[in-house]
């Protein structure tokens, strides 16, 4: 597996982490009502979307490099 393929695995893991982090913030906000928890929820969602956009850019930029 090349660095390109491993980077994609890493970005997928990061997207999942940020999605989970957003859900964690949302769940906490529903119980505590604290605005900081809502901010975590929002931040996690924005980071997850940002990472998906980056992954698309990365694939386009490195399309000539092998996955092996």
């Amino acid at each position, binding site marked *: 597996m090349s660095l390109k393929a491993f980077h994609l695995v*890493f970005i997928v893991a*990061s997207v999942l982490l940020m999605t*989970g*982090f957003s859900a964690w913030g949302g769940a906490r906000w529903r119980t505590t009502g604290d605005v900081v928890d809502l901010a975590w929820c929002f931040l996690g969602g924005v980071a997850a979307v940002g990472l998906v956009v*980056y992954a698309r850019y990365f694939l386009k930029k490195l399309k000539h490099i092998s996955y092996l």
Partner: protein
Amino acid sequence: MEIPYTDKARPDTGLYNAKVGLWLFLASEIMLFGALFSSYIMLRVGADEGVWPAVKLAWPHHLLNVPIGTFNTAVLITSSVTVVMAWASLKMNNFKRFRMFMVITILCAFAFLGIKSYEYNEKFTHYELRLKDGKALTGHLEVNGKHPGFWSPSDLWNLPRLTSSNVTEVKFVADPMEGHGGHASHEALTVKVDEISHLDAFIPRNHTFFAIYFTITALHGLHVLGGALVLAYFTFPGAGMWKTNPEQFTNRIEVGGLFWHFVDLVWIFLFPVVYLL
């Protein structure tokens, strides 16, 4: 004698030597961290319900600083992006860009370690205090007018040491209690030493949580340090190979980048398990 397949891939595997070696090494690393993660999860699910320190064997993970952990996660994700960009720059024959991205990666690594040290300092200077009447508090200690520091082991206090040092009373600034609005006063309580049943900092010997937390994060921190030193070597003193054998140099950066990604991936699992769950 020339060693084969250092820059060209072996035809049957499609891989060069260093990549095969690195993946074998990463397989052993997965087993090492996997064992530690499994231990953490087993201890976590086996812990008593309730809030620590009121419940002595409850899990005190809420003491970790989520904003700092989140910031460190962002730092490591950024470093993974820059290390892959550095490698891609070499593939495009742009050494100047490669060096710029590598310097950012190394700065991110040291920023991560600096922030982690700050977190360690927070833990080593934070204390658990139990009184003989059953009250349990966490907070900051003041002995003989001095707040214990981080780097000097002689600053670490516990009950036997207070007794043997003939200290009769200490000052203790308690943390706000969870579920009490978080607005407790920060006045220092004066506590007589003969009223104390247990006193210790948030250090490995104090609680199973701290023992496994420091084991996993310190091991991960050592990997970050080792990876950063290797990447720094490739960026500066070892960069001369770019002129003599650019293909092998690019392979070295790819292998360094693979290790760096593994270290970052460990953190991607570590952060939610230790800080959030």
